[in-house]
């Protein structure tokens, strides 16, 4: 049991990368069970940290098909019900092609290619600015 817990958290750890901003790098495969677990972890963490932005990085996800896309969409809808905004990052050109070809409607879900871009958006949402020291 302990191993299983470790395994899951290693594959999708939830990090607070800035106050009010969570980062979840997801790797491996996403089936409905994992998606459910990931969603529950994210929801708990949002409530615990009162985060407004959640960056889900899917660069390490092996297969992105319509089922996986729907799992991701579900998670973003769930975060919305907690007043938070989900940004999916790690979208590479091949994935973008697959998603569009599958006719998956990402609708309101924000997506970005890199975590850095997603972080920029999260900062915007939080009203934060990065300024160089003088």
């Amino acid at each position: 049991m302990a191993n299983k817990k470790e395994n899951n958290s290693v594959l999708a750890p939830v990090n607070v990368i800035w106050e009010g901003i969570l980062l979840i790098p997801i790797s491996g495969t996403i089936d409905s069970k994992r998606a459910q677990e990931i969603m529950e972890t994210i929801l708990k963490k949002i409530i615990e940290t009162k985060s407004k932005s959640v960056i889900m990085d899917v660069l390490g996800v092996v297969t992105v098909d319509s089922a996986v896309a729907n799992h991701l969409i579900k998670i973003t809808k769930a975060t919305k019900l907690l007043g938070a905004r989900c940004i999916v990052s790690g979208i590479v050109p091949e994935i973008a092609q697959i998603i569009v070809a599958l006719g998956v409607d990402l609708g309101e879900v924000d997506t970005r290619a890199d975590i850095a871009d997603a972080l920029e958006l999260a900062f915007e949402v939080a009203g934060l600015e990065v300024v160089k020291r003088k």
Partner: protein
Amino acid sequence: MEEEITLSKVGMHVTRDCLVVPIQVELHDELVTQIQEDILRRVKGERLKGVVIDLSGVAILDSVLARGVFDTAQMTSLLGARTVITGLSAGVVASLIDLDFEPGNVPIALTLDEGLQTLEPYVKPKEEPEEAEEPEKEIDQDEKDETDEDEELEGYGKDEE
């Protein structure tokens, strides 16, 4: 047929020009309808511009009940008020998502406090005391017109001295 207005068991109070509705009891269809009517009546009667419905005391919310609550938000917007829904728990969210519940574009916040913050721009601001500057300005200008030359000379005079 006159019916007495039956108030729901849910207490509602106005704070910071917003109607705060903390729901601490388990909901059922009739109660949701009653709450809806109470809210709409108060929003209209007291000309309120903001409503926060806090669901942190609710453990179970099926899609029908949720629909009732979220519909209330849509209804208040038709009355010119804005409703924010707060306090959904992780468990409630997970079950609503499973049931493919669509919240629409109803604003949602995590806590009651954040809900009130979200409403601030939409709620009528407290009346500020009228600026007294303008009448004074006029007087100043009149005086200035008369003494303009004198003042200017004085200023220059000082420098030269």
